[in-house]
């Protein structure tokens, strides 16, 4: 459960630039808590190091461009296949031309939510691609770090008061945010689902925050012998690439579990997000997609595995995309 630390409101005051104004605080405890206290304090300790690109979070920094590439590709794929299918992506006034592959601001005009934003690595990139970004985190300290970092960047507008608002941060959980009316064209939650206590409830909240026809992007780690070897044995214990205790193997989520989750109706009577899967358990590409992302130590970089290599490339880290039915 995310509890307010003493002195929290003071620390909060300098994040009030975001549209998370004080009126949301203090918040009532979330109805279902999926946030694990031990994990929150663990990351809070580390959050000062978030933006050291060669430090503890180096792997995450390196992974970021590849995650963004996946988001770009999927969003463009959907826009180009069904230009008018995107819920509110296009300003109603203009006849929307799908952004070209070379266009940097592919998320222009979209409302994007980053759940579990940490220090804001992904959130800043989303905002630079033109997205109207709201980034939330269960750790107040993370929100502090993320806000401070983004504020130092003159290219990012953190103030929602002006119409050009692009990036704001809030210390709030998905479960709380879902009680507000706002819904998003894209909801991302990267490297989060393996850290929460109640993944099903967490996923349901994330899913509910997506507008009809919108996208949900997740990234996590599969629960396989390989991922144990790589993420816990190698990365935490042997090479200390990440702080020991960062991951709990039993919380890792397999791709087929995510696919299974979205193949069932999320609410009684609702249409499932994935209507069918092929013999090998993979969904059709217009409904959902699983892509492996593999770290190559000799290159010092990640690669987004080609589509054809799924499922064998999704034995450890992978990205998941699913689209909400338009209804």
């Amino acid at each position, binding site marked *: 459960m995310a509890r307010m630390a003493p002195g929290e409101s003071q620390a909060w005051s300098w994040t009030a630039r975001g549209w998370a104004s004080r009126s949301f605080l203090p918040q009532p405890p979330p109805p279902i808590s999926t946030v694990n206290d031990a994990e929150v304090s663990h990351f809070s300790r580390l959050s000062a190091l978030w*933006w050291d*690109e*060669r430090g503890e979070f180096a792997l995450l920094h*390196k992974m*970021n*461009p590849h995650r963004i590439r996946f988001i770009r590709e999927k969003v463009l794929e959907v826009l180009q296949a069904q230009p008018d299918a995107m819920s509110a992506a296009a300003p109603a006034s203009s006849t929307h031309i799908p952004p070209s592959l*070379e266009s*940097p601001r592919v998320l222009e005009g979209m409302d994007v939510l980053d759940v579990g934003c940490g220090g804001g690595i992904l959130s800043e990139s989303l905002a630079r691609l033109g997205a109207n970004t709201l980034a939330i985190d269960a750790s107040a300290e993370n929100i502090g770090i993320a806000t401070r970092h983004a504020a*130092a960047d003159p290219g990012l507008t953190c103030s929602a008061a002006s119409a050009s608002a692009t990036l704001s941060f809030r210390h709030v959980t998905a479960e709380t945010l879902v009680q507000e009316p706002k819904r998003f064209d894209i909801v991302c939650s990267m490297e989060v689902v393996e850290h929460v206590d109640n993944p099903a409830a967490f996923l349901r909240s994330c899913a509910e925050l997506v507008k009809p026809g919108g996208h949900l992007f997740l990234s996590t780690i599969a629960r396989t012998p390989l991922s144990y070897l790589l993420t816990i044995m190698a990365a935490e214990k042997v090479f200390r690439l990440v702080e020991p205790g960062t991951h709990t193997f039993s919380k890792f989520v397999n791709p087929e579990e995510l696919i299974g989750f979205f193949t069932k109706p999320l609410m009684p009577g609702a249409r499932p997000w994935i209507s069918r899967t092929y013999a090998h358990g993979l969904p059709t590409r217009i409904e959902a997609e699983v892509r492996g992302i593999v770290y190559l130590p000799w290159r*010092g970089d990640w690669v987004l595995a080609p589509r054809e290599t799924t499922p064998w490339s999704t034995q450890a880290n992978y990205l998941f995309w699913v689209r909400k039915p338009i209804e």
Partner: protein
Amino acid sequence: MRGASSNIRRAVRVACRRRGSPQVLWRYFSDSGTDAPGHEDCDVVVVGGGPAGLALASALASKRTLRGSVKVTLVEGSDLSKIYNWDLPPDAFSNRVVSLTNATLDFLDEIGAWTHVDVERTCPIEEMQVWDGISDARMDFNAAALGISRRGGSNQMARLTETLNLQRGLLRRLREQPNVTLLDNTKVMNISEDDIPGGAWPMVQLSDGVTLRARLLVGADGINSPVRSYSKIDSYGWDYPTCAIVATLLHPPRTFRPNTCAYQRFLPTGPIAFLPLSPTASSLVWSTSPALAAVLTKTDPAVLTSMINAAFRLPEVSVRYLHGHLLDVPSLSPDDLRAEISFREQAHAIAPYSALASANVHPAEAGVGIPDEGAHGLPPLVADIQPGTVASFPLRFRHAEAYIGNRTALIGDAAHVIHPLAGQGLNLGLGDAAALARCIQTAVMHGGDIGSRTALVPYTRERYFENHKMMSAVDKLHKLYASTAPPLVWARSTGVEVLNELDTLKAGIIGAAGGRSSAHSVPGSPWEMVAGGVETLVSGTRVMGAVGTGLRSVAGGILQQLGRVASGPGKDQRE
């Protein structure tokens, strides 16, 4: 507080400074609105308006994806309008000449700059003749034979261009590109980190009082790079005990072939190169001892002319003698020198009609009638030197230990300085500019912060090792050819020792080292080309017979040992 009004003031000031210059090359700072008091925010600040800096600015501005999203400001201490307005008659040439590889030309084409270069003033190199000053073992690179050509162009392996012609072309291109603000006559006085929490961005203090805050600060600021110092990046290297003399050489047109062959003779004191510019003008780059360079740059042009002709023709022992003699008698008259050379020619049994003769031959008559057999392997006789073009500069080796720092990146001479013997220095710098522009584009596409390490690492990855390979190959060749020890001369003449370096150089020349190899231009494997080169070397040795016959029959085991000996000096000096 610096608001819109001060921006306008500044714009007016910039415009005023330009009065009298007809070109509107200079733009105003746009009011970005997010500027904090006391500074102006820029996405990319490039320090240095040399070829590398200008090419980077132009490459960034030419990328469609970056238009409107990346604001570029280039700061240069000197007056760029002088280069913009540079103009010489068609038969006069500047003494700073660079050889642009096909890969570099493709890049300049891509960014739209090459069309602004006066092509009439450039010259294709279709052939290169390189030979050993001692053994005369010779390598002949022929673009047509190697099948090297430019996309839809002639059989050329490179194109000689005056640096000023290139820089002017880049400036003309930049004039069409509104995304770049050029601030010339403006020096970077100091660079410090900003004190915004979570920031530590470079604050660049300019000589006109303005401070720029850079998301990415690029050092294209030459060998003493202030950006490199700010980044606390060390640069290792040494000064060669040599200087390069440059000059524009005038000669009669060649009758039996176009002036499109470059010649380079490796003398133990350093290579002397003849680089064609037009049918009647060529450029000299002669690396030699600083003492000799000092004399040669001050002497009567007629003396220099004779010394150049002799340096390409006389046996090494006599060239060495002449150098010593000139150092002893710096005031040597042209006639005395000619007599000395004539005496040496007789001593070496060089017939007056031979291509190797220069003392008593009038350059204009050398090419008349049936040319001597050896004429193909030698540059035309130099008749005169274009006044005011003789200069010399020190030769150095420098390599920065890293190309990126905290929101900084280094390109061109700021990152590396190389011996000019392979004509690769500027090509490496332009290769850096191309790679960094690509890297920035990729980062922008992925929503990256272009000043971040994550965004810049691909640039280092693409360039550092590639540059290092070329730099050590060139350095090793320089040191190897500086030796007169018979085993070394033999080893290099048979290609044993220079195989790898030649491979790197060839790759550089055909463009593979420029980051993109154009497969269509390379026939067969690089190995086949190297093998061809070695064959020429070996046969050259056999014909010339300059190296003892005994040496040539040594068994393979000794050969390996020689290899080790040969690589020794290079390593020692490096430590």
